[in-house]
């Protein structure tokens, strides 16, 4: 067996024979996914309902936004519901005319519905002219409110779980290997640093892949109802760059810390705030502006964004550039610092 294979095996065995790490990698994040997934299961109701009477391209376009739940109560019943505040708006389509009935009591929802219906109508108008639109319009912001909690919880908790695996795994391995003299022993064996590192990274990737399979499989259960987008596989590069970035952070933590206790404390200090501020448990878009700004400094935010973009939003390959670029840049910079700080033994 090659040194690489046997080291990977040794590390994998060391990993799965450790019940505590298994718990923190698999059970702990899954608990959050299940609890939040169940708590917010009815969060889908937050999706705005819109009454519709009639048919036509505008109605089809409204349905296609996915931003509203279309209901068809009929004209009289619909108007009554709007008046009583049970429906934010009712769109009455009759041939070429599109009329929106709304109640002004709930200004925010009324405004949203107005904006949406007028936007969609204009869009259909432009399409009908066969001319290219004079102004390009992106519907990205509208989509956000359509995310059911499980849709942002899954990528968020998955990224967080992977961050835990990579940061804790890398830092604790490094510290314990240094303390138990394994590093010195490896230094005396004809094996390159690259071989040792890549074996550890491969084990981390394998564990992260299992986490991803488990979390996504659970989220896909009908109780939770995750719906993967068609471009979910584009999340793989984000997944890999994220692992590298967090592995590098783990190496840095491990290079600094002398004891396992210190390393696990430091890893917590790095991962926890990142998890809260980067959209693991709630979409970062609803956070205050300063949180959004701060979160941009965290690799977890970019991993979240990337996972979200492909797992649920179905964005195209061009959306890979930013998250992967940032994560890989993080990897390079942090690894360079870690390599500087690294020592083979406590002196």
């Amino acid at each position, binding site marked *: 067996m090659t040194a690489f294979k046997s080291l990977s095996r040794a*590390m994998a065995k060391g990993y799965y*024979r*450790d019940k505590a790490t298994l718990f923190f990698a698999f059970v702990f994040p899954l608990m959050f996914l299940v609890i939040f997934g169940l708590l917010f299961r009815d969060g889908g109701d937050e999706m705005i309902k819109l009454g519709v009477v009639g048919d036509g391209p505008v109605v089809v376009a409204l349905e296609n936004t996915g931003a509203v739940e279309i209901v068809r109560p009929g004209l009289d019943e619909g108007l009554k519901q709007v008046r009583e505040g049970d429906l934010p708006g009712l769109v009455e389509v009759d041939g070429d005319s599109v009329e929106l009935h709304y109640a002004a009591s709930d200004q925010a929802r009324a405004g949203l519905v107005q904006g949406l219906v007028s936007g969609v109508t204009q869009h259909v108008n432009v399409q009908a002219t066969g001319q290219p639109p004079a102004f390009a319009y992106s519907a990205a912001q509208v989509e956000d409110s359509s995310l059911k909690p499980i849709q942002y919880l899954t990528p968020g908790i998955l990224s967080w779980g992977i961050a835990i695996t990579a940061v804790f795994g890398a830092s604790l391995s490094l510290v314990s290997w240094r303390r*138990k003299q*394994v590093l010195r*022993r*490896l230094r*005396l064996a004809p094996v390159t640093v690259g071989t040792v590192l890549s074996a550890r990274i491969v084990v981390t990737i394998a564990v992260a892949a299992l986490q991803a399979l488990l979390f996504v499989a659970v989220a896909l259960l009908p109780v939770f109802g995750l719906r993967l987008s068609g471009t979910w596989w584009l999340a793989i590069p984000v997944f890999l760059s994220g692992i590298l970035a967090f592995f590098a952070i783990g190496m840095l933590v491990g290079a600094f810390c002398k004891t396992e206790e210190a390393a696990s404390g430091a890893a917590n200090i790095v991962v926890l705030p990142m998890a809260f501020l980067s959209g693991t448990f709630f979409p970062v878009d609803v956070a205050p502006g300063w949180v959004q700004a701060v979160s941009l400094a965290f690799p977890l935010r970019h991993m979240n964004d990337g996972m979200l973009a492909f797992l649920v939003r179905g964005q195209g390959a061009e959306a890979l550039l930013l998250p992967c670029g940032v994560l890989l840049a993080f990897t390079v910079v942090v690894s360079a610092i870690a390599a500087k700080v690294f020592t083979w033994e406590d002196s």
Partner: protein
Amino acid sequence: MTDTTAAIEVEDIRKSYGDLRAVDGVSFSVAEGEFFGILGPNGAGKTTTLEIIEGLREPDSGHVRLLGENPFPRNPGLLPRIGVQLQASAFFEKLTAREQLETFAALYGVDGERAREMLDLVGLAEKADTREEKLSGGQRQRLSIACALVHDPDILFLDEPTAALDPQARRNLWDVLRAIQERGKTIVYTTHYLDEAEILCDRVAIMDHGRVLALDPPASLIRGLDAPTRVSLERGTLGIDDARVLAGADDAHEDEQSLTITTRTPAPLLSALAERGTLDGLQVRTATLEDVFLSLTGREYRA
């Protein structure tokens, strides 16, 4: 040594930690195929010396040639040719004895079969599936030695390999080491057991305070000491004044248990004792490395 096939040449190496001179000007060379021992009390600088030779530490000054090459910084060409058992054993987490050995074997491109042979060699076959953390201190030590042997290195460095071993395991290890030496391999080892060094080593270096105090074959060191032979008898079998005038006797002392006669000519003394029929509890003790150590350091050796 003038030997041209020196496996190790150490020239005036020094290493300080702050004010502490851990190694303070050590020079020696070890010939290929030699069994070389380093003795000395705790903190003498044995481990530091070994680790400098192995290339784990950089000396502050001085030179080391290991198989003709500089071992520091990490010299990948040398690594497959040396086997090292560190004083504190180094193992992968949560692996069984067999898995540890197989992993180390693979690092050196050696197959798993050889790993299992090594377990047999150090008498750990029945512990093959026990996790390293569940082994006893001596078993762990044996595993650590097996890991150092697994790739059949040309030079073997063992830092107190017999420290935690029971007498049976110690003797087994002696046999293993002798067999390795017979195949022409070089062994450098440290120990606190002077009797063991006397039996095993071709030459020993006695260290204290970072310096080599003496370096020779054990027998020469002992002969050079020119220490008297001590013959002791059960107390009361012979009066101390009678003892002093026996043929060959230099001097005599008495303590609570025994009467001890020192002599440089044991043969006439022993026949004089035999003639008188006073051989009860007779013990003859010639000088050992312990006496050498005592005379060099002024300290009793407490292993």
